[in-house]
């Protein structure tokens, strides 16, 4: 007997007390979903403010600008970090980095993690941002690129289109996401609390996370 059959057989014997009658769609009816779809009543504007507040609370650096100011802001943010090279996802709108001096680096399938390690910064868009938790979610879309480009460099700038890409809560975010895509949820920069529970930012992921909330794009 294969281990698969063995384990499934054990499960069925273990559940001899469970009646067969409740088989169909029991899950849908048996789980109460009376928890909240979002916490609190907010205007769209207040939801964006809450996102900014919660991102900052977890040590992300938050900036806000209008669409036409974005190239200039990104140029300044990269310059302030002394970034000479910047990773660019294939579908990032070219206008965003039009003013930046840093050399664009493209992520090719053949490039090794070690090559990515040499790059200073990365600029991406996002799929959705969650206000209540201060989270941005990347789904590998054209303006976000492969997971590794937001992981290996030490400085990540993420552009969130407000208010379109902002939702209030985790349940609302899951509804918008496609589970078939590789998803990365990011809440603040990499952090550890493993030493006496003192929070230290920056272990293996980017030590600096900057989030630009851009309106009118």
């Amino acid at each position, binding site marked *: 007997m294969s281990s698969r059959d063995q384990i499934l057989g054990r499960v069925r014997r273990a559940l001899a007390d469970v009646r067969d009658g409740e088989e169909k769609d029991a899950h849908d009816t048996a789980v109460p979903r*009376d928890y909240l779809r979002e916490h609190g009543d907010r205007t769209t504007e207040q939801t964006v403010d809450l996102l900014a507040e919660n991102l900052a609370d977890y040590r992300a650096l938050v900036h806000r600008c209008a669409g036409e100011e974005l190239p200039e802001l990104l140029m300044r943010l990269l310059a302030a970090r002394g970034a000479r090279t910047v990773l660019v996802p294939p579908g990032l709108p070219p206008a965003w980095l039009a003013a930046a001096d840093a050399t664009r680096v493209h992520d090719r399938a053949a490039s090794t993690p070690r090559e990515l390690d040499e790059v200073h910064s990365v600029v991406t868009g996002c799929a959705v941002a969650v206000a209540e938790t201060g989270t941005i979610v990347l789904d590998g879309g054209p303006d976000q690129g492969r997971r590794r480009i937001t992981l290996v460099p030490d400085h990540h700038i993420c552009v969130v289109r407000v208010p379109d890409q902002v939702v209030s809560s*985790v349940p609302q975010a899951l509804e918008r996401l496609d589970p078939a895509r590789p998803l*990365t949820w990011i809440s603040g920069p990499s952090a550890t609390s493993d030493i006496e529970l003192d929070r230290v930012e*920056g272990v293996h992921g980017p030590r600096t996370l900057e989030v630009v909330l851009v309106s009118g794009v």
Partner: protein
Amino acid sequence: MPAFPTAAREAVGNKTLRANLRHATHTIRDKRARAVAELDDWDQLREAGKRIKDETLRHLDRHLIQLEESVTAAGGTVHWAADADEANRIVTALVKATGETEVVKVKSMATQEIGLNEALEAEGIHAYETDLAELIVQLGKDRPSHILVPAIHRNRGEIREIFAREMSEWGRPAPDGLTDTPAELAEAARLHLREKFLRAKVGVSGANFMVAETGTMVVVESEGNGRMCLTLPETLISVVGIEKIVPTWRDLEVFLQTLPRSSTAERMNPYTSMWTGPSQEDGPSTFHLVLLDNGRTDTLADEVGRQALRCIRCSACLNVCPVYERAGGHAYGSVYPGPIGAILSPQLRGTQSEIDASLPYASSLCGACYEVCPVAIDIPEVLVHLRERVVQGGEVTRHGTRVTLRPAKGHAAERAAMRAAGWAFGRPGALRAGQRLASGTRRFHPRTLPGPGRAWSATRDLPKVPAEPFRDWWRRTNGGRAEKGDKK
């Protein structure tokens, strides 16, 4: 492994350990309470989480088959492992097939439970733990003592010493002049591990959740070591307990709210990775899922005890437990310490060994663990149930077969004492005579009991016998009225 009382006695005598533990557990429990208070619907989320897990367990066979189908459809390969040895053999063979002799690991309770690192080492494969706390434990040749913060028992000075001494053995040495500030220690770990991440070809992980409907794996973490292990290698092997299933994508909305707040007391943990099968374009091109039983189906067979399988490994119960706070995680003799460990380990492993028979007693039954549990596991109920099983024996399932347990040996004295008490309480004359004898000889009473009673008195102060039995006092003073002087 010695029984819990023996192991705990040593830990309780270690002042540094107690101070480290007290600081850590109190810090995190206070933060958790604040994070939970932020959500008005915590009780509803807790109930939904409990029901989702219960419904999953009640139809686990169906969900496992659906999960297998969806992972396979997404391009992954599913393996089934009935026990630890089989899981280790599967993983070892998969690593060997890649031709690699190194793997990077994300912290995983399941792989600790089966002793995967040791099994790989025996086959000449080095497994590097990449979670900072796990690294501290691995370099210190130590054992983890907490589910979430495995090095909770170490303070910064001890960690600095371990890094300075051991890092060079495993790769990049610690920087010269390393101090004990957490930031410098984290930086040393970053440099040490980065060279391993960048060259790794095989990653090994667990998973916090597996979605049956979509075949999605979910790993919740903070440092980015998880993202490194899940993204950079060519081959990814995930070893996951069969109870980690949630049926639908939507179910994640409950646990992504309750898990971070219960475990690290954050609104959301810094990184959560979700992947559905491998991808040629983004991340590992080969994905293997090893579904692990290793005692879980035996636990499922126990109608009272099966609720332990609802556990999402948040560790909130450890941080509120007065016994854990004083005894520390090592005393539980398992990768699952604290209250949840006290009910999970004896069910996964059976109650035959001394340590497993003692674990249901490693509790004061105060109920704080039940209060904080985000999936409402009634830990005290299961503890009492397991105590009964240890003392009385009875029908249980081991390795899929019904067996009858005999009462555990160590509890003969307890049973004898209870029988004697029953006899005495049924005979008032004998009880009175016994009490008078006890009072009359109280100057000569020992501080500890002789014979089998020693185990009991070793962990407790013996109650002082009063100078006069209560019933004699009542008769002499007319229920206290004569003493107060208000004779009526």
